[in-house]
C-alpha cells in the first residue's frame, strides 16, 4: 500500500477536536430540472463535520460538491433545484426545517459563512470593499449576538471597525484602511481572496464553507492562501468545509477528506487513512491518476456519467474493475473500516490486505 502511494503520511496534528458533530448531513437528495430531464445531483449523500475540523470535500467536475455546499448554506437555485429528502443538522438543529428568513438572518453569515470560488466576480463591482464589509457588519456583527453585552450604535461601529482593520492585517493586507477605500477591480485576485477570508471570519462563525477557494489562483498565491486559511481556522477554532477537485490541496489542509463521485459520496476518512490506506476503488484510482514519475500516467477509463440518466446502484460501477452484478443493482451502505473511516463499497480494500 504505502509503497504504491509514496511515503507514509504522518499527521503531526492528531485528529484535533472534531469529536462532537457540528454538522451532519444524512441521505441528502437534491435534484435539478434540466433541459434533458431531472438530474439527481446528490443521491443520498452523508457528510459529517466535527467542531473545529477541516473537512475536504473532494471530487471531479459534476460530482456534486458545490451543490452540497450550496445545499448546506440553503442557497440552491430556487427555480431549478429541489431537495428530495434527507436531513441537514447544524448544532443539533435541522436546517431544512427552518424558515428561509430565519436561515438568512440567524444562520447564514453568522453561524456559517462562505468563501467563494471566484474572488473576481463575488465582490459587487460597483461598491467599495469597505462599503460591502460595513454592510456585512451592520447585519452580522458579532456584537449583535444575543449573548453579548448590548452596545450603542456608535460604540458598536467603532468596535467593528477596529475588528475589521485588525482582521485585514491578520490576512496580510498591508494597508487595511486604503484597501477598504478601493473598488474590487483595483485589487489583485490574491488580495480579494484574503479579504473574502477575513469577511468569512468577521461574524465569528462556527463553520466556514470554502468552495474551491484557490482554484482561480496561481500556485504560489494558492500556497499562501492555504497556509493562511489553515492557521486562521486553527486560531479561531472554526470548522471548515473545503471543497476542491485537487487531491493535493486537500492533503495540504484537511483533517478529514470525503470523496464524491457523480453525486454519491464514496469514502470518508482522516487524511492519514485517506491518503495512506484508501479503501474505495475510486479513491485508489483517483490517487493513481495523479502524475507521478513512479507510476507513469494512469487515467481512469470511461467518462463521468450524465446525471440525467446515471448508472443504477453504485454510480462508479461501469468504470470499476472490481464491480460485480450486485454493484449495478444496489447502492452500498457505509461500511466502517476503522476509526471514522467509512466507505460505500461492496468490495473495499480492507486494512491489512494488499
Amino acid at each position, binding site marked *: 500500500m504505502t509503497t504504491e*502511494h*509514496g*511515503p*507514509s*503520511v504522518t499527521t503531526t496534528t492528531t485528529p484535533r477536536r472534531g469529536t462532537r458533530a457540528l454538522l451532519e448531513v444524512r441521505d441528502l437528495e437534491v435534484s435539478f430540472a434540466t433541459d434533458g430531464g431531472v438530474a439527481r445531483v446528490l443521491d443520498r449523500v452523508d457528510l459529517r463535520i466535527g467542531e473545529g475540523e477541516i473537512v475536504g470535500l473532494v471530487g*471531479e*467536475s459534476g460530482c456534486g460538491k458545490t451543490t452540497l455546499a450550496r445545499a448546506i448554506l440553503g442557497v440552491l437555485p430556487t427555480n431549478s433545484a429541489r431537495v428530495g429528502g434527507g436531513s441537514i443538522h447544524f448544532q443539533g438543529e435541522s436546517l431544512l426545517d427552518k424558515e428561509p428568513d430565519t436561515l438568512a438572518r440567524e444562520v447564514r453569515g453568522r453561524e456559517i459563512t462562505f468563501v467563494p470560488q471566484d474572488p473576481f466576480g463575488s465582490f459587487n463591482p460597483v461598491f467599495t470593499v469597505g462599503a460591502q464589509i460595513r454592510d456585512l457588519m451592520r447585519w452580522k456583527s458579532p456584537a449583535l449576538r444575543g449573548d453579548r453585552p448590548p452596545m450603542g450604535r456608535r460604540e458598536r461601529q467603532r468596535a467593528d471597525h477596529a475588528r475589521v482593520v485588525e482582521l485585514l492585517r491578520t490576512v496580510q493586507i498591508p494597508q487595511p484602511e486604503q484597501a477598504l477605500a478601493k473598488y474590487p477591480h483595483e485589487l*489583485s485576485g*490574491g*488580495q480579494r481572496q484574503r479579504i473574502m477570508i477575513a469577511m468569512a471570519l468577521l461574524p465569528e462563525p462556527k463553520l466556514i464553507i470554502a468552495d474551491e477557494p484557490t482554484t482561480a489562483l*496561481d*500556485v*504560489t*498565491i*494558492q*500556497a*499562501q492562501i*492555504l*497556509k493562511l486559511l*489553515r*492557521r486562521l481556522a486553527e486560531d479561531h477554532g472554526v470548522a471548515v468545509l473545503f471543497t476542491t*477537485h*485537487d*487531491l*493535493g*490541496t486537500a*492533503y*495540504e*489542509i484537511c483533517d478529514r477528506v470525503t470523496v464524491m463521485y457523480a453525486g454519491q459520496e464514496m469514502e470518508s476518512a482522516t487524511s492519514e487513512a485517506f*491518503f495512506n490506506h484508501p479503501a474505495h476503488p475510486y479513491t485508489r*484510482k*483517483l*490517487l493513481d*491518476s*495523479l*502524475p*507521478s*514519475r513512479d507510476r507513469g*500516467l*494512469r*487515467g*481512469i*477509463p470511461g*467518462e*463521468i456519467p450524465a446525471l440525467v440518466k446515471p448508472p443504477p446502484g453504485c454510480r462508479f460501477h461501469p468504470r470499476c474493475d472490481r464491480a460485480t452484478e450486485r454493484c449495478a443493482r444496489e447502492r452500498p451502505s457505509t461500511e466502517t473500516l476503522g476509526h471514522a473511516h467509512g466507505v460505500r463499497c461492496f468490495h473495499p480494500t480492507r486494512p491489512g490486505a494488499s
Partner: protein
Amino acid sequence: MGAASNPALLEVADLAKHFAIRNVWKRRVGWLRALDGVSFSVRRGEILGVVGESGCGKSTLGKTLMGIHRPSAGSIVFEGNEIANISPYESRSLRRHLQYTYQDPGASLDPRWKIGRSLHEPLVIHTDLDHAARDARVRQILHAVGLPESHLDLYPHEVSGGQQRRVGLARILTLQPSLVVLDEPTSGLDVSVQATILNLFLELQKQFDLTYLFISHDLSVVRMICHRVAVMYLGRIVEMGDTETVFARPAHPYTRSLLAAIPDIGGKRITDDFWLEGEPPNPGNLPSGCRFRTRCPIADAGCAGQEPTLQATDPTRSVACWKAEATS
C-alpha cells in the same frame, strides 16, 4: 533524453512583445512588457516545457510564435526560415508545419460548424486536395486521436471536454506539423481524464514524429512529460535546463518557490513550509534590476542594479540570477 544532439527545429532569439499602455486619450503612457527578450531553441523530437504563473508571458510567447501578435523585437526561425513579422496568412506555406493547440479547444472551433467541416478547413487553406482526398486524411487522423467517425457530424458543444481536446489535436494534425505548441493542454481537465490525454500526446508524438512546445502552469505534469523546461517570470526566462536537473536542484529562488508551492501528497505540507511572500509586481511597472528581487528572500542591494541574464551553471542548465552561484 536522447534529443540533445538533434538540430534545432525552432530558434527564438531576443523575442520581445511589448503592449502599449494607453490613457483615455489613446496616448501611450508606458509599455507592458509581456515578453522581454526571450531566447531558446527547440530541438527536433523533444518536448520543451514552458512554465510560469499567470502574467508571466507564456501564452503571449505561444501567440507571438504563431503570428497572432507581431513581435516588438527579435527573431523566430522555424525550419530555417525567418517567420517573425509576417502575418500567418502571408507566411502560411512557411508555417504549415508549425501548429498551435488552444487551452480550450472547444472554443477554438466555430460553434456553428460541424466538427467534420472544421477538420477539413486547414486542408482547404493549405492544400489543393479535393474533397475525397481531404476526407480520407481527416478520417485517418480522427482514428489516430481515438474518435469515432460519427463525431464528424456533431457540433463542438455536443462532445465532452476530453473529446474536444482530441478534435483540437486532429484539426492541426491533418497538416502533418513538425512542431506543435500545446498551450495549457490539460487545464480544466479532471485528473482521471488528464492522464489519458497526456498519454495520447506521447503516442501521437511517436506516431507522427512530433516536437512539442508544452506551455503549462502545472509543474507536476511538466515534470512527467518534458525533456527540458524553461521557467518564466514576468516576461523573461529565469531558469532553463533539463527537467531532471531543474526539478531536483532548482537554482533560481523563483523556481524553488514554485516547486515548494506544489502540493506534494505524502511530502512536507506547504501549510507548514511555504515561504514566498507577496504577489508579482505590476508588469507595466517593473522594478529595476532583477524583476524578482521584490519578492526574493535572498536579494540584496546588488540585485537592484543590472538585470541578470541567463548564464550556464552546469552543462544542462542555465539561470538568470546574481546569486545562483551561492545557492545552487
